[in-house]
């Protein structure tokens, strides 16, 4: 049984020391995460980089948008050919505008989807949080077994943790 705990620190330096301490106490890197009110680079916290695969979302989005644009402009005129102003039924110059807009719309929607999927939002029921974080506190979220917790707690408080919250019991 490794429960989740959230320790709050007033500044970055203390949180970094706490991370070092947790590692020393045998908490694996994968069971630690940092929660903050402003972005803090992984390098500052000495944490592994978060992999970002946004391009894998944005590019297919662009492609889908492009295809939709082509289908709308050239496909629909072929389905129901109507002659206007002596223009060819399929003509690239006036179609480019719509194709461009749909490509952009594809990127926009795909990027939003990519953000939500990768950041795993929305997540309305998550309890591992404390309102002090949006006031500027740095939260260190970690898992710890019941036996070792007393020691961890003592060390973190010594390092300046203002509060250590027992988030939830865990099945893992």
């Amino acid at each position: 049984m490794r429960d989740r705990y959230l320790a709050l620190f007033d500044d970055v330096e203390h949180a970094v020391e706490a991370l070092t301490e947790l590692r020393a106490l045998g908490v694996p890197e994968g069971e630690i995460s940092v929660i903050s009110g402003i972005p803090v680079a992984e390098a500052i916290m000495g944490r592994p980089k978060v992999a970002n695969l946004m391009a894998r979302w944005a590019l297919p989005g662009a492609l889908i948008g492009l295809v939709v644009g082509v289908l709308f402009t050239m496909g629909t005129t072929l389905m129901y050919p109507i002659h206007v102003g002596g223009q060819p039924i399929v003509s690239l110059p006036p179609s480019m505008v719509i194709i461009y807009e749909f490509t952009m719309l594809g990127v926009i929607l795909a990027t939003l989807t990519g953000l939500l999927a990768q950041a795993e939002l929305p997540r309305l029921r998550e309890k591992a949080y404390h309102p002090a974080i949006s006031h500027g506190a740095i939260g260190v979220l970690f898992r710890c077994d019941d036996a070792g917790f007393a020691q961890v707690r003592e060390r973190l408080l010594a390092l300046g943790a203002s509060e250590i919250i027992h988030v939830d019991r865990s099945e893992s």
Partner: protein
Amino acid sequence: MSRQNGGTQEHRWAMIVDIDKCTGCGACITACYAENNIPVVGEEEIHKGRHMGWVRIERYWEGEYPDIRARFIPIMCQQCGEAPCEPVCPVFATYHSETENINVQVYNRCVGTRFCANNCPYIARVFNWFDPVFPEPLHEQLNPDVTVRSRGIMEKCTFCIQRIRQVEEEAKAEGRPIEDGEVQPACVQACPTEALVFGDLNDPHSKVARLAQSRRAFKLLEDLGTEPAVIYLKGGDAHVV
């Protein structure tokens, strides 16, 4: 002539307007109102520039008083081969018909953006600012072959498409070609001086085809490349507009 109008190119309906013969009597306008169910809007609206006539007779004064002459030029939809009004419509309410080779207006598709009207260099299109009113007993004389248009949509000269279609269908039923002069739009029929002539340009023996070869022939704003189907005739020294 036009880039890509496709279709059968079966007919190229066209009109000759001999402005040397035009007296500015306005019979064409009246006939058009009667034939095409055009509402009469009254003095006040006309003053605002909202007359609904599909033909207008522009009058220009020439010379100085007392040696002064009025010149008339009837202008209606020029039925362009490459009409600027067509591509700007977002709902295909106006497009190039393939058999008649004229510019048609589908009232039921129109949503009233009025883009076509702005883009018509001949200012030939009119808009239904209000619902049409035909006070009794005028509603009894409405032409059953022509739709009465509601407010909010564009309309314009159709070359009396209902008459063209009627003749086309009759000729087809009887298995014969359409004779020259068989189709007569209301304005042509009404013109007392025969200033207006209607026919098929694709028929080399038609009267319009012959007149179109005249040295007096010209088209309005020809340099815009709209390929109008209305051809004007204007004489040398006697008549200058």
